[in-house]
């Protein structure tokens, strides 16, 4: 298997994580049939040398390809390109505007914070930015009939839309501000929903006993290939019902 120089495009200056870049490179090799179905891909050490990345980067990229169904790993034998099955009829797109605004509920909003911070913990990963990028941080408490029901923290890379720092976010949805005022179209939203336990400050704001079960909704917003926003919403489970509508493409 020959790997030419022009394939070596893992670029350390790109904000994208190295393993994501490597994932894309390797995925293209499979899709272009450079690595045909059934063939064995080079061992990890060789990939490290070829793309001048660490073993950890190679493992993550290979693992992701396996998860996406491009590769299969056979213990003691190696990693092989497999025939990818795309289940027909399951590619659906939801109309996400309705998903975001709980229909028919009139919120009142209290802006608890609208300031700037640097990425800590894994925020850089969640926003796909480098660690030295400033982030606009917005924390809002939403109430129905003066009762707090939803605590929402929003993180936006500052360079994506600097004026958002000054915008009034009490009544305006960020979605509308992005699309209508700043011309940034949101093309994809990824939702992660789980049941979690409220942290002390969240319990206090939501008027719940400590360590209460809450609905945790994390959303990643994209405009084309660029990730523009990450929100983390803690919802009182007794006040929300999630409804998702799928439409066949």
């Amino acid at each position: 298997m020959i790997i030419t120089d022009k394939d070596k495009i893992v670029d350390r200056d790109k904000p994208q994580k190295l393993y994501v870049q490597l994932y894309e490179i390797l995925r293209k090799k499979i899709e272009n049939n450079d690595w045909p179905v059934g063939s064995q891909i080079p061992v990890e050490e060789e990939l490290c040398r070829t793309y001048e990345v660490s073993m950890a980067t190679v493992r993550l990229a290979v693992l992701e390809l396996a998860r996406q169904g491009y590769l299969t790993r056979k213990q003691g034998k190696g990693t092989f390109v497999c025939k990818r099955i795309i289940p027909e009829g399951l590619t659906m797109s939801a109309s996400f505007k309705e998903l975001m605004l709980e229909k028919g509920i009139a919120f009142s909003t209290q802006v608890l914070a609208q300031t700037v911070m640097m990425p800590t913990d894994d925020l850089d990963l969640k926003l796909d930015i480098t660690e030295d990028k400033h982030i606009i941080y917005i924390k809002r408490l939403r109430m129905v009939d003066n009762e707090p029901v939803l605590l929402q923290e929003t993180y936006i890379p500052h360079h994506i839309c600097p004026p958002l720092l000054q915008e009034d976010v009490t009544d305006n949805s960020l979605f509308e501000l992005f699309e209508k005022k700043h011309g940034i179209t949101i093309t994809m939203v990824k939702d992660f929903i789980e049941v979690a336990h409220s942290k002390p400050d969240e319990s206090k704001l939501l008027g719940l006993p400590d360590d209460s079960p809450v609905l945790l909704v994390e959303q990643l917003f994209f405009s084309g290939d660029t990730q523009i926003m990450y929100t983390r919403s803690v919802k009182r489970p007794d006040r929300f019902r999630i409804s998702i509508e799928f439409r066949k493409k």
Partner: protein
Amino acid sequence: MLKGKLVKDVMFDVFDYPHIPYWFSIRQAIGIIKKSLLSGDKCHNPMAVLVFDEKYNLLGTVTLKDILKGLEPKFLKPSKKAQVHEEDESGLSVLWDTLFKESREAAERPVSEVMVPTKLFVKPEDPLTKAAYLMIHNEMALLPVLEDNKKFVGLVRMIEVFNELSDAVMTA
């Protein structure tokens, strides 16, 4: 000549410096400072992190010195009651375990406890001599620039003030 040079001529962008809200822990601030020190091109002298409130008003600055002070275990701090002479440093080499345990706990405190609050500032239209005066008399190497006494628009550093002043002296 220094005359005519204004703060706005030498001030630079606030986004050149890391920002954090006041509720971040000292530990989080250390993480951010370390990343800035490693990234090289964004490392400024003096190294500092700007601390803001929830409405993006500048509250203060945190430098390496402030962090070290925040991590200093109590038993190393000079006490009036202590029988030992203040400059007796023999205790510094012992009890590393104790020191780190206490420092680790100290690192969980919010940065607002160790930051230097912003009390003094200059305006963009102020002459650079004013910035120099404030720096000299208040031991500040970094001075915020506020527009209309409110909006934080930039920073002046001692190095630029020094450069301008020394150029004026040398060419006089």
